[in-house]
């Protein structure tokens, strides 16, 4: 018996090693000839479910438009949930270990994205984030394997604040009381002087606030020219409804970042109002031919227009598929190198992932909710792009020193 127990660890280890080797060989085999698996991490439940659905539809359509194939092999999408940072991170790990994905597209919330990024860096799997606006993602936490399509909060505020000062000089801030809202407040305050405006009040609102009537009464007393906000999702929809209910819609303009079309479709034409900065709008005459085709295909398939989130899911997936094609390989390092060289020149202003921080450099649009909404979906008029050409756009996204990313080696 004694001798047996001596040999046991050895044999067991050998067995494990053998199995692992077999598994690796099997995985390598599957990766070369079987379908190309790509992971998606978007919300399936809770308040983010509607946004998750639009992101997923965009990504899915990009695959369909590519004929469902890349490098002549079928594409298989595996969609897991993004309920909170912990589970999103576990799901990212699961996609890598169990589903053997070659890359992941997903992460709408900065907190989840930061958790998923650590897995991407450790496992060396490319991750493209269609959302997640926190500066540090392409700043001090930047990673060689992570790319982001969404513009950061400071970049969005830089596009918006000059517009705010055209409306009026007295600004009231209504922002959510967590990292994202504080980011808005910080960036906006640093720009106030530059645009010649001043602050007459500020409220940082806790997440999941159902009733805004007390805040609205307060804003009414302060008599600002304009309210600059950053409420998101259900909180934002609740606010809009009550803003309209209390008769403020016609009185004080509301201006904000980080909204999506579904926020307005959820509250309906009666309560929708304001001026916003958005990555994209489906009914923008300046959209490229490919974007117009995307809108058309989306309408045909889902019977409603794509939201800006669908566009983000679509462009993130397209950049990945085009980079895999360019690299002629599903090997992670090759994909990353190709993504760093990827450029889209279909529209008036070309856009690309900046190689030193992996941020997509692209102008956003400033939109205004129509005074008289007639269409079931078309709520916005596009006022202008945040920047007119490639050089101006690059300037708006800030220099190396400001961004603070020291990109690790591959």
């Amino acid at each position, binding site marked *: 018996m004694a001798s047996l127990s001596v040999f046991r660890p050895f044999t067991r280890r050998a067995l494990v090693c053998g199995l692992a080797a077999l598994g690796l060989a099997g995985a390598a085999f599957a990766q070369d000839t079987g379908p190309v698996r790509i992971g998606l991490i978007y919300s399936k*439940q*809770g*308040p983010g*479910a*509607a946004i*998750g*659905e639009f992101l997923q539809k965009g990504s899915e359509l990009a695959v369909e438009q590519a004929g469902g194939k890349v490098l002549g092999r079928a594409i298989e999408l595996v969609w897991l949930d993004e309920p909170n940072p912990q589970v999103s991170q576990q799901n990212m790990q699961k996609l890598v270990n169990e589903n053997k994905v070659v890359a992941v597209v997903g992460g709408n919330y900065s907190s989840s994205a930061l958790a998923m990024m650590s897995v991407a860096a450790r496992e060396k799997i490319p991750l493209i984030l269609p959302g997640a606006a926190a500066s540090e993602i392409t700043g001090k936490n930047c990673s060689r394997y992570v790319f982001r399509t969404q513009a950061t909060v400071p970049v969005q505020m830089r596009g918006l604040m000059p517009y705010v000062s055209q409306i009026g000089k007295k600004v009231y801030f209504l922002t959510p*009381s967590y990292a994202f809202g504080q980011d808005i407040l910080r960036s906006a305050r640093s720009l106030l002087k530059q645009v010649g405006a001043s602050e007459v009040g500020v*409220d*940082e*609102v*806790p997440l*999941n*606030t*159902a*009733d805004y*009537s*007390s*805040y609205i*009464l*307060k804003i*009414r*007393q302060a008599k600002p020219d304009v309210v600059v906000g950053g409420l998101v999702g*259900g*909180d934002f*929809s*609740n606010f809009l*409804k*009550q803003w*309209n*209910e*209390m*008769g403020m819609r016609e009185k004080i303009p509301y201006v904000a970042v980080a909204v999506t079309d*579904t926020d307005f*479709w*959820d*509250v*309906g*034409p*009666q*309560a929708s109002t304001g001026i916003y900065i958005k990555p994209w709008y489906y009914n923008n005459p300046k959209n490229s031919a490919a974007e117009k085709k995307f809108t058309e295909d989306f309408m045909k398939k889902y019977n409603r227009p794509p939201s800006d989130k669908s566009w983000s899911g679509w462009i993130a997936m397209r950049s990945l598929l085009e980079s895999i094609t360019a690299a002629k390989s599903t090997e992670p390092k090759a994909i990353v190198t190709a993504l760093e060289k990827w450029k889209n020149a279909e529209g008036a202003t070309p856009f690309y992932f900046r190689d030193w921080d992996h941020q997509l450099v692209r102008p956003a649009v400033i939109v205004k909710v129509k005074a008289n909404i007639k269409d079931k979906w078309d709520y916005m008029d596009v006022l202008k792009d945040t920047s007119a050409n490639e050089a101006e756009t690059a300037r708006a996204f800030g220099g190396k020193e400001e961004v603070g990313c020291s990109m690790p080696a591959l």
Partner: protein
Amino acid sequence: MLDTLVSQTANGLVLGFIYVLIAVGLSITFGLLGVINFAHGAFFALGAYAAWQLYQLWGWWAVVLAPPLVGVAGMVVEVAIIRRLYGKEPLLSLIVTFALALLIEALIRLLWGADGKPFSPPPFLNGIVEYGPLLITKYRVAVLGTTVATLLALWAFLAWTPYGRILRAGSRDPEMVELLGIRLPRVLTAVFGLGCALAAIAGVLAAPLWTVSPSMAAGAIMPAFVIVAIGGLGSFPGAVVAGLAVGVVMSLTIQFKADAAAASMYALMFLVLLLRPRGLFGERWERFE
């Protein structure tokens, strides 16, 4: 300054009444059945969705059908699931009703989709009423009227009708009530249905104020639990007083120290429970000691 105080207090009272309506259903279910219903918020959301659907089908008048419909759904749930929890330890009812809440939310998403449904106040209730420093929207005045009427009717029902007496007796001494020849299980089914219908009334009234989405109860259900704890578990007047107090405290905190808005109702709960551990109107109940 005084104007501000008056206007925010009035606003807080109106908001408080909506919270009372949500909390009262929760309190009745607990007081009479001994079940802490975590799915109360889900029935609230179900009420809002039922109202939206009925409005789409037949217009404004049809929304009054939403609460009875949700009440019936609640009765079905009681017979199928909740009934098995009576007399068991409270933890079990917490877990089962929590699962039920998730299930109902998923069902709503399956039936109506994950995105919200546009729902605004009816056109005849658009606009605001201004009276000196007071500013209240017409819709909120209507909500206030409906809520007060509902609460009065409920109180009269429990205090004065024979049926109400059976309910109150059954909550204290179920055995004695059964010995008197009353079939208690049927009564309890109706009580659970009543609790759900009350949640649904709150849901219908909240639908034009808050976004109608599957997880719409998230922001409303916590105040309801806090109100029940402050007022005293199972106490009807307790829920009313606590609800109004929470509404006013929250409004005034937002006015003068907005950072503390989320914490204010918990601070109030902490203070009340420190002085009166059973809540403001909480009595000593043999069953729960």
